[in-house]
């Protein structure tokens, strides 16, 4: 076909003349580049609905278009599933190419993700990168290979089994009753609507909602002595709380807001509102700011902050004298021996502890 036969006069404001046959082909390319895969039926629906095309293509024309795109450098897979034909654009020349520096950086990032237990993002990241960029001189699976170990990485077999079990409860939305060992060695029976198992600060937690308070809670898996399933299903999402706090001094001048925070600046500093379903996590961050931060509302968060501060103060005073004496004995009185000085003198023992 000549160009002339395919020209189409637009009546749009630009009054552009285009080649309609090429336009159809490139439109199919555009659709394929923006979808995971497309059936012939879907393709034709898009073509019919496009005001400049307004018709389906025959299988012969479609084959010609696909052949043209392949000649251009597109990798197009033809898949068949339940009597339907699908096309998938797995690679094409217009994707941005990764530089070697970027590729190495992404590979290192992928390895860090891999080392994080339960990081679902490791797997997702490894799939996303090749979809977004051409990988130079590397097999397409270079990222996927980095994730062979995936979720189990960083966990012992025993921990992994426990995690899997709790993940199953989360998936099934099963309410649990747990026997929880508190830090003061008391035991408490608690209920939780489990949501997910998370890994944070080198510990595994079961996160979910307390069905009584409707607040988000988390319990370290190591502190759960036993558990049983209750004949109830998870009911609703945890309640979100809007916490308002004030920042003053240098911190107010250099504060970088967290996602979703609304900030009002005034003479005293900043008044920030943060909406969260994990007040405990927010309070831990706010503690870091010391006296430059004050929670204004709600009262429950103020009380929790006060409890945390008092708990820290109380613990700081506890049995300090004996330990100070023990651990300073070597620093201050050179050569003196104390019954606990063993811990100072035996780095090998310490390494064993660190490897625990």
């Amino acid at each position: 076909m000549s160009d002339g036969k395919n020209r189409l006069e637009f009546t749009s404001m630009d009054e552009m003349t285009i080649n309609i046959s090429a336009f159809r082909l490139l439109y199919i390319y555009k659709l394929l580049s923006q979808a995971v895969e497309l059936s012939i039926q879907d393709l034709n629906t898009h073509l019919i609905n496009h005001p400049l095309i307004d018709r389906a293509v025959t299988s012969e024309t479609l084959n010609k278009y696909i052949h043209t795109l392949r000649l251009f450098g597109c990798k197009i897979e033809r898949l068949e599933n339940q009597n339907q034909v699908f096309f998938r654009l797995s690679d094409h020349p217009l994707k941005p190419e990764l530089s070697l520096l970027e590729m190495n950086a992404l590979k290192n990032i992928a390895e860090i993700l891999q080392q994080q237990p339960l990081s679902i993002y490791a797997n997702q990241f490894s799939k996303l990168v090749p979809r977004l960029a051409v990988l130079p001189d590397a097999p397409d699976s270079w990222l996927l290979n980095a994730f062979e170990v995936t979720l189990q990485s960083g966990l012992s077999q025993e921990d992994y089994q426990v995690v899997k079990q709790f993940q199953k409860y989360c998936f099934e939305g099963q309410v649990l009753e747990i026997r929880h060992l508190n830090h003061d060695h008391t035991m408490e029976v608690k209920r939780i609507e489990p949501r997910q198992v998370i890994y944070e600060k080198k510990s595994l937690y079961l996160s979910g909602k307390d069905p009584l308070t409707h607040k988000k809670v988390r319990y370290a898996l190591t502190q759960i002595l036993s558990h049983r399933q209750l004949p109830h299903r998870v009911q609703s999402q945890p309640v979100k709380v809007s916490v308002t706090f004030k920042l003053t001094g240098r911190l107010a001048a250099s504060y970088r807001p967290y996602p979703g925070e609304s900030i009002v600046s005034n003479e005293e500093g900043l008044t920030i509102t943060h909406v969260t379903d994990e007040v405990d996590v927010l309070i831990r961050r706010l503690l870091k700011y010391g006296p430059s931060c004050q929670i204004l509302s709600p009262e429950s968060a103020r009380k929790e902050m006060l409890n945390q501060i008092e708990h820290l103060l109380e613990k700081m005073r506890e049995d300090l004298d004996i330990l100070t004496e023990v651990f300073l004995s070597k620093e201050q009185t050179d050569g003196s021996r104390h019954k606990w000085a063993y811990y100072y003198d035996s780095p090998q023992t310490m390494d064993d502890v660190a490897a625990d």
Partner: protein
Amino acid sequence: MKPDSFNQTAYRILSLLLWLSKEPLSFDEINQRFKERNTIGKTVSQDTLWLYLNTLKALGCKVSRPTKRNGFRYQLTYHPFNYFLTSDDLEVMKNTALLTNHHHDHWDLIYFVKWVQRVLASLANENRDTLLQKFFEESRFVQTDGLEESIDRLEHFAKHHQLLTIEYQSAINGIKTFAFLPLKVFFDQGSLYLLGQAEDQGQTSMLRIDRIKNFSPLNNPELQQRLNEQLQERQLFIIRLFNCTAKTYEPLGEGEILYPDPTSPNNIVVRLRSQNDFLLKQRLLSYGTPFQILYPGSFDYEMHQTLRQMRELYTA
């Protein structure tokens, strides 16, 4: 249909698109390429080129007109033949940034951010600018565009213990100029920092690199030696962490030694040296478990004072 049948016009437009996606080209340069390409082998008229460009524009491409300023070249500023990013994809990118923002190699993170910027800028999504903004807001990463050369030079100076004079945009005091002995560049919580010893500062300082306006070597051996000595002075700290084991311990500083607590298997005692007790205080307050400062007494007193001041905010 013959097995090798293809749409010649579409093929030419695709080739044009690919070339323009790499660099701006003039009418003559485009024709030169058409002629050299075996599967095309001929030039086109100006009218036909306009037809091709109009076809691309109708698909959503943005091509600027040739002007004297750009050497009469056609420049492709956007094309839609790209991935459509879903909110789940953006979540993966954001969480990748959050999970790796303590990574020791800041260059990996710089190139990761550059890649994210490049990918998001070329997306098929119409709201790509909003997505880019959202990525930086939610990951809390600071943009490092154009800082690579500065980072490279700062690292060089840190490695060679070169004293610098730095012009710094302080969030509180505005622009300040001072002498600074750099120790290292590092990435933390989405920002790049230069750690080192500032003139007239008792403790080490962390300067945000995007706020360094200017820097140059400073020749003052006496000051250099003094700041170097200050950098070497590291205070010993001994801290007991409650409900913390060697397995769950998250570093409070550098070069720590962990000891079992003789009074309880649930606790550990950490011995470390630090040059900046402000940062150590921050880390302890947000550590998530109670602690006791066994040494030095001055830091224990300071921490008590801080906690008492904090308590007053809720009891006064």
